[in-house]
């Protein structure tokens, strides 16, 4: 029998055909490999480099650049490997300005140029660093958790390292974070790092003493229509549910500690509304409150308050707000009982809201309704923000938001919202604006955020990553809040100085004058006078220091405490042991008016700009050591000071100091202060630095 035959020949033929196919197929992958996407970009970039080369060295460098994967490896940052620079080749090449993507240099930010080797790309922009193809690198693929952040939300990434509420140069993020704290997100949603959170919403104990049921019902129905500036959201309750909640709140026992029922003279006697009006304006209430939208807005709107509160409550509240709400930011003015009654009558008469329901008598409801109301109160999460008699029962009824920024799109519940793009930022924005549009039965109320607020909140949410960044990258919240000590502390708390002023980096930001080094800055005698009758220091500001009507002894104590304790050792006391020589003053005058043109911002004798503080009588107010130190470099003392740093030499600074300190006061400082009552236009206040 023969081994070769027709069948064998066919076999050999098959064998040769399959061998060729075999080799061809195996060659496909290496060929595909050679034409990878990034190689095209690298070749194009090389051409651009060659064309833009202006020196031989640059030309040589361009020629020497080899095609290959480029990467930034960050072992210290969760072992990131960012190969974005394989295509985005010009991120650090200023010569590529104006080139199209992906060759454009990175725009200037606080971290670029310079920090690329510390942060890479993905830490801020997200996406998939290891990838070397366009679609995969930008993370727009099904199985990659964090697609690239839309550019408008890049700020959110700052918040992954910067843990504080205020992030420098990330204004929208800072706004969003502050907003989150204010509007009460943390009342319902747990977020790691925000476990301790204090709601701004009032304690609801004693509500029946403060207002009347009809107003409360109208308020719950639509808080914004009664006070547009409120953050209380619309819970979209039915009328029946609202009645139950009102019934529940009305059934709470009144606050016995306020003895609102005692019929003191002030409560019974009719006040003088005209005098109340004067007091209202003199006390500068609108430095914090608004009336019909005018005013600062850091405290509640007052128009309509007359239709809301009872007279009894208002009189007692004005006399001592802190007894009602221990955490209120409102200072305790030194109002007499008569002052309080006058003010209250003015407010009740003036600040009425015609749309608010008329006061109705008390309410007594069946237990069943009360219980139903309590159930709704808890179910809706009211107690997330409102305590009742100091009890909140921690109502974290919302889902935890820790790590929301890293939630994969696949795990988001889009429900009915088929109109939304399948992306986390859009989902978050829609949740914030219209939380119940996703499906029935959701609990989150409607806050009515503006578009801008929505964007800020989305930004803040997008900054809440799941795992903290490595400690070396964290910029922690500043610890150790300053607590003023002893008697000074008591006074600061009573007058709520830190609602507006900062001391040692803690406190409100309403005032432009931090008090940390007040003693090194102003003279003790001036301060004591100023506290009696705050005069205008900065004409441009609308919010003024309020006259607190403190007793003389307290003023003296505060001034002396500032003089002795609130000091900065870097600032000398007086730099002129004796009065400065007249020639030096004259030289300073020339420098002031001619060389540096300080009058453009500062007003003297009613002439000059009103951007900076008035300088009339600056010598009585400020210590020469401070003026000198300030002139040598304003930004040393306040990073955001607007006054330019002219880089003055010592002699010029001395001369200017001598001149400024010699400017006479417009009116004798003690002249105005002698009148027992403040004038109607005391107008002074809130000062920035000298």
């Amino acid at each position, binding site marked *: 029998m023969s*081994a*070769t035959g027709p069948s064998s020949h066919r076999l050999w033929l098959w064998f040769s055909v399959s061998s060729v196919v075999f080799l061809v197929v195996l060659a496909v*992958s*290496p060929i*595909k*490999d050679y034409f990878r996407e990034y190689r095209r970009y690298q070749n194009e970039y090389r051409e651009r480099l060659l064309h833009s080369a202006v020196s031989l060295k640059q030309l040589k460098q361009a020629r020497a650049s080899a095609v290959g*994967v480029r990467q930034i490896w960050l072992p210290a940052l969760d*072992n990131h*490997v960012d*190969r974005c620079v394989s295509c985005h080749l010009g991120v650090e090449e200023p010569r590529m300005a104006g080139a199209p993507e992906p060759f454009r240099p990175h725009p200037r930010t606080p971290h670029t140029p310079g920090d690329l080797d510390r942060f890479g790309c993905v830490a801020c922009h997200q996406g*998939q660093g*290891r*990838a*070397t*193809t366009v679609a*995969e690198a930008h993370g727009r693929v099904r*199985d990659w958790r964090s697609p690239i952040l839309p550019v408008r939300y890049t700020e959110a990434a700052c918040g992954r390292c910067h843990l504080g509420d205020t992030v420098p140069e990330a204004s929208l993020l800072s706004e969003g974070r502050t907003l989150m704290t204010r509007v009460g997100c943390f009342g319902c949603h747990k977020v790691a790092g925000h476990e301790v959170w204090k709601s701004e919403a009032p304690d609801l104990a004693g509500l029946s003493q403060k207002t009347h049921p009809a107003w409360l019902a109208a308020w719950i129905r639509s808080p914004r229509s009664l006070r547009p500036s409120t953050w209380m959201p619309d819970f979209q309750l039915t009328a029946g549910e609202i009645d139950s909640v009102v019934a529940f709140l009305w059934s709470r026992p009144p606050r016995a500690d306020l003895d609102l029922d005692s019929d003191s003279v002030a409560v019974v006697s009719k006040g003088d509304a005209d005098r109340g009006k004067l007091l209202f304006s003199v006390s500068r209430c609108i430095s914090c409150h608004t009336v019909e939208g005018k005013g600062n807005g850091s405290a509640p709107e007052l128009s309509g308050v007359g239709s809301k509160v009872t007279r009894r409550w208002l009189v007692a509240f004005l006399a001592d707000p802190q007894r009602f709400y221990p955490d209120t930011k409102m200072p305790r003015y030194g109002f007499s009982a008569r002052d309080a009654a006058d003010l209250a009558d003015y407010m009740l008469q003036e600040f009425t809201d015609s749309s608010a329901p008329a006061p109705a008598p008390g309410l007594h409801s069946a237990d069943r309704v009360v219980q139903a109301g309590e159930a709704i109160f808890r179910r809706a999460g009211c107690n997330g923000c409102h305590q009742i008699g100091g009890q909140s029962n921690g109502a974290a009824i919302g889902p935890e938001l820790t790590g929301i920024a890293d939630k994969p799109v696949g795990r988001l519940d889009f429900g009915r919202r088929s109109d939304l793009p399948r992306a986390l930022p859009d989902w978050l924005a829609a949740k914030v604006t219209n939380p119940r549009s996703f499906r029935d039965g959701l609990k989150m109320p409607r806050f009515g955020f503006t578009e801008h607020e929505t964007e800020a909140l989305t930004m803040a949410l997008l900054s809440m990553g799941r795992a903290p960044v490595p400690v070396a990258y964290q910029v922690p919240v500043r610890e150790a809040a300053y607590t003023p000590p002893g008697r000074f502390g008591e006074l600061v708390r009573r007058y709520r100085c830190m609602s507006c002023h900062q001391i040692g980096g803690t406190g409100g930001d309403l005032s432009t004058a931090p008090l940390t080094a007040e003693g090194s800055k102003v003279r003790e005698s001036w301060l004591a006078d100023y506290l009696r009758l705050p005069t205008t220091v900065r004409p441009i500001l609308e919010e003024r220091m309020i006259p607190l009507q403190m007793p003389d002894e307290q003023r003296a104590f505060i001034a002396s405490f500032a003089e002795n304790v609130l000091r900065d050792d870097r600032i000398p006391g007086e730099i002129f042991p004796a009065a400065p020589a007249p020639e030096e003053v004259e030289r300073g005058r020339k420098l002031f008016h001619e060389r540096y043109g300080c009058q453009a911002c500062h007003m003297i004798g009613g002439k000059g700009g009103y951007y900076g503080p008035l300088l009339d009588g600056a010598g009585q107010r400020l210590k020469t050591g401070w003026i000198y130190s300030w002139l040598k470099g304003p930004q040393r003392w306040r990073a955001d000071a607007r006054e330019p740093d002219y880089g003055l030499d010592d002699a010029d600074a001395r001369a200017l100091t001598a001149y400024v300190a010699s400017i006479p006061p417009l009116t004798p400082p003690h002249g105005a202060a002698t009148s027992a009552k403040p004038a109607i236009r005391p107008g002074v206040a809130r000062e920035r630095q000298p």
Partner: protein
Amino acid sequence: MKLPESLIESRVWRSIVRHGIRATNRNRVMAVMESLVLHLHPARVRRRSLEASRTYFLGAISLILFAILTATGLLLMLYYHPSVPQAYDDMKELQFTVSNGMFLRNLHRWPAHAMVIVVFLHMLRVFYHRAYRPPREFNWVIGVVLLLLTLLLSYTGYLLPWDQLAFWAVSVGTNMVKAMPLLGPPIRFLLLGGNVVGENALLRFYVLHCVMLPLAIMFLVALHLWRVRKDGGLAGAGRTGRSERGEA
């Protein structure tokens, strides 16, 4: 004497290939007899055994798939670290930076799935052809064990990419083991090196997948093929003539 001929007649050539290359039947027999690899085959085979309907080449395809998997698997081992999260990152490296990395990975994954199917089909073919009958009972048992080993090999490999798919597939699978009364939990603990699917499990699955199970399969495949020859070569379809085929 021409050059090729002198080459073939040279002592060096002859020390490697002892017979000539001319297509004589003697040389063909020698090619089988002298070769280590071809020693699995007899020098002559029955023409009918070569027909596709006899075997559908399923056993051969299984072996080929195993060979492909061994080759690509060895190459993949050069790029893989069985640790968390490096294992997952290595998958990304294969995809994005290793030359032909994705092709390599595909050429390991798809044959792995194919092998499960082909081995199962091979078993069906043997069953329907009655090829498990005496004297081949034991070879059938070896085959069943090989099928189980194939499943295990595929299953242990499933975890190695350390992605969601892998993790949850293995979690689901090992939770089934837990259902076994008495022995379940200890077996699961042994398999995972702990109570959860974690880095220990990854290491164990890696060692099982790359060393233990392949060695076991290689040994059993050798035995399997050896028995096929010892039991009289390929068994044909049982229906023809209603009897076992055999050489004895």
